[in-house]
Every structure is written in structure tokens, then in C-alpha cells.
């Protein structure tokens, strides 16, 4: 039994797609939102959009940690990269994201001599700090609940080992407050959510129960293989048709109801919920994770005075925010395709290869 390949080609995909076509004919247009960047990538990789019936729309919501990091935060990080005593450790995802100045990114700063290292895990950032005791190693901690436990473990370890030249800029986000903000916005128009399987691996599937319970929105926790995605979309569409919203867990091989208690405990031990600014959604109370007071010496925001208020700066003209909320299509942005292209992205939705705008750009003539 393989945990991924076995799920790549569901046996009865064609029949299910035909049934989905019938279903949408019956219900009229259905708009589903995936709120996980990896779902967005997986949907594109499987070529799923081309198979879905007309009238069934998949919208890429605020699920890419890079896409929701505000331009102001990137500006601050770029300024920090100017300090000769600082080594920045970042996931590759963040390197091309521009701040509020077009064309300026960590990749560009690196070419100008800034110390920017790509890491795959926060553990590597910790090792960098141990290797360079004369430098300040700042780990750029983007991510959601899936990434937060590992980040927490590294902060715990830094404290234990007394590694004073290591710090984390926590740009970590919590899923639930953002989803609530999205759903409660006056222009919200989505019929159901494809919930992020790897967030749920940590939080448990029950973390998404509020969607059907409080907002009467169908929600399916889904895996990332084509079979998972097709199944989850079918389940959501079926709930929309029946008018019976519920929470379902499609990804049972990875996700339990209660999640991973040890990982949740690590988050709770190190971080406290704090207000955070999301690109496109603005400031949302309790939607971020800030290191607790016991971890102040390892909190880059405190160590280098990260100005919380200024991070709400947005790039003029860029409508990535509206695109992320599903209220504007990429082509409705005045910058799309003219000023903002994959080779020279202005907003984060154009940066990631499968960001909503990059995908729309690639398919623009079809």
C-alpha cells in the first residue's frame, strides 16, 4: 500500500465527473473555495479544472502563507536584510515575494549581498545560528498550524541551548479567525470549503466544525492526491445539492478528529494568539501566533522592533486581496497581465506558479 500513488487515479473518476455534471445542471452554479496553497497546486497539477463541469468554480482562497503576508512585512524584512550582522533564513516560497516596491524581493537583495539562506526546515535555521555565533540568524516563520509546531520546537530548543543569536519573526497564521472574517464579509459568496488536510493533521478535523455549525457551510477536510480532491469536491457538491451542510473528513489516512495533541501542546507552550495583518483581509484579531513573553529574547519582532502597525501597507493598484477573498477575478485587476506578470510579479498571487493570477495568466488565451 502506498500512501500517495494509490490515490492518484481513482477507478471511477469518469463516472463521478459525469454525475457531477448532472448535479450542477440541477443546482445551478456552485462556488467552492480551497484555502490551502498546496490544494491549489495539486488541483492544477492534476488538471482538475479542465475536467470539472461548467458552473462548478474552484476559488483559491487565502491559503498560501506567502500570499497572505502583507507587503509591509516584506518591506520590513527587506530592510532587516540590509544589516551586515544579520543572516535571514527563509523557506524558498518567500524569496520572490515583492514588498511594496515593485521588483524588490529577498532574491534581489541576495544578489546585492544580503545574507539570505533558503531552508527546508526551521531546524536548519537553528543549525545556522550555532554555526555563526557572531551573526544574528533570523528565521522568517511563515505558515499555518501545520508549520507552527516545528517552529515552536525550535524556539524551545533555542531557549534550552541558550542560543541567543537565533530569533524567529513569527508571521504564523491561524486558520479559523481568517475563515470567520472571510465568511462574515458582506461580499462573501462561496458555497463550501475544501479544508486543508495538513492543517487538520495538527488541529484535528473538528477544528473546521464551526463552518457547518455556525455558518451552514459544507466543509470537507481533503487530501492532496487527485483521488482525494475529486472525492472531496463531489462530497461538497452533494451537500450543496441536498442543502445539508456538514463537516466530513475525506483524508482519514492522515487526519483524525482530535489532531496531534503533542504538536498542539507545543504551539500552546510557545505562542499566544495575537492580532495579525493578512494581505487582502486586513488586521484580524487573534489570527496570528506571537511568541509568549518567556520567548521574548528569541522573538525577532521584539529584538528588532517590528512595527506591527506599518505592516498593513499594500501595493497601489494590486488587487491580490480581493482575488484571495474570491470577490475579484485576476483579470479584473488593473495591473494583471500588463504591469504584473509571472516574470515580473507585483502581487503574491502572481509569484507562486499556481497562484490564482499566475494560473489565470497562463491560461489567458484559452
Amino acid at each position, binding site marked *: *500500500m*502506498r*500512501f*500517495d500513488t*494509490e*490515490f492518484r487515479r*481513482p*477507478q*471511477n*473518476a469518469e*463516472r*463521478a465527473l459525469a*454525475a*457531477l455534471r448532472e*448535479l450542477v445542471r440541477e443546482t445551478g452554479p456552485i462556488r467552492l473555495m480551497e*484555502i*490551502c*496553497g*498546496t*490544494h491549489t497546486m495539486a488541483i492544477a497539477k492534476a488538471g482538475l479544472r479542465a475536467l470539472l463541469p461548467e458552473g462548478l468554480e474552484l476559488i483559491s482562497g487565502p*491559503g*498560501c*502563507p506567502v500570499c497572505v503576508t502583507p507587503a509591509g512585512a516584506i518591506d520590513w524584512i527587506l530592510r532587516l536584510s540590509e544589516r551586515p550582522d544579520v543572516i535571514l533564513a527563509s*523557506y524558498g516560497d518567500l524569496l520572490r515575494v515583492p514588498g511594496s516596491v515593485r521588483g524588490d524581493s529577498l532574491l534581489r537583495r541576495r544578489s546585492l549581498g544580503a545574507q539570505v539562506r533558503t531552508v*527546508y*526546515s*526551521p*531546524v*536548519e535555521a537553528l543549525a545556522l545560528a550555532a554555526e555563526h555565533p557572531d551573526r544574528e540568524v533570523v528565521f522568517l516563520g511563515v*505558515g*499555518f498550524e*501545520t*508549520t507552527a*509546531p*516545528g517552529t515552536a*520546537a525550535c524556539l524551545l530548543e533555542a531557549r534550552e541551548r541558550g542560543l541567543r543569536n537565533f530569533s524567529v519573526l513569527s508571521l504564523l497564521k491561524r486558520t479559523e479567525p481568517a475563515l470567520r472574517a472571510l465568511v462574515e464579509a458582506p461580499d462573501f459568496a462561496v458555497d463550501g470549503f475544501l479544508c*486543508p488536510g*495538513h*492543517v487538520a*493533521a*495538527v488541529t484535528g478535523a473538528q477544528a473546521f466544525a464551526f463552518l457547518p455549525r455556525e455558518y451552514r457551510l459544507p466543509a470537507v477536510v481533503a*487530501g492532496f492526491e487527485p*483521488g*482525494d480532491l*475529486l*472525492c472531496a469536491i*463531489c462530497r461538497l*457538491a*452533494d451537500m450543496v445539492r441536498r442543502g445539508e451542510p456538514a463537516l466530513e473528513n*475525506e*483524508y*482519514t*489516512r*492522515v*487526519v*483524525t478528529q482530535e489532531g*496531534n495533541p*503533542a*504538536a498542539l501542546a*507545543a504551539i500552546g507552550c510557545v505562542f499566544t494568539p495575537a492580532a495579525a495583518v493578512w494581505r487582502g483581509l486586513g488586521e484580524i484579531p487573534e489570527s496570528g501566533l506571537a511568541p509568549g513573553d518567556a520567548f521574548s529574547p528569541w522573538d525577532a519582532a521584539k529584538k528588532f522592533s517590528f512595527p506591527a502597525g506599518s505592516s498593513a501597507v499594500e501595493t497601489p493598484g494590486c488587487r491580490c486581496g480581493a482575488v484571495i477573498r474570491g470577490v475579484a477575478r485576476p483579470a479584473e485587476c488593473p495591473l494583471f497581465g500588463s504591469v504584473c506578470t509571472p516574470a515580473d510579479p507585483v502581487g503574491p498571487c502572481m509569484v507562486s506558479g499556481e497562484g490564482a493570477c499566475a494560473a489565470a495568466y497562463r491560461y489567458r488565451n484559452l
Partner: protein
Amino acid sequence: MCLAVPLKITSIDGKRAVGEAGGLSQTLRVDFLPGLQPGDYVMVHAGFAIQKLTEEQAAENLAAIREALDAL
């Protein structure tokens, strides 16, 4: 939101372990999954195992997907 891959644990030393997939071995941290044994499968994100996997659950999952697609 979060990329994760399944790995098979080949050795464990405290919080550190080595896992394998496709002939490649990778070091990972197992802080959040106490009691793992070599031979266990885990889902790994950014160098940390976040959940344990079992063949039984995977088989059940596959059967459930088949059933759900048939039921539509």
C-alpha cells in the same frame, strides 16, 4: 498551505529520526509523535513528522473514496 510527504522511519534516536521514500533518506524530527518505531510511516512537513500513518487506514481511505465516487 502545507506540503507534506509520507516517509518510512528507518531509525530513531530520541527526537531525531531517519526516514525513507523512493530510495532517498532524510533526517526528520519526531518531537510530536511519541512511541514511533522503525518501520512506521509518518507524514512529514518542513522536517517534522506531524502524523503517523497505517496501511489499514490507507486501505480504508481508498475504499471510502471509491464508495463516495460511486454514490454520487
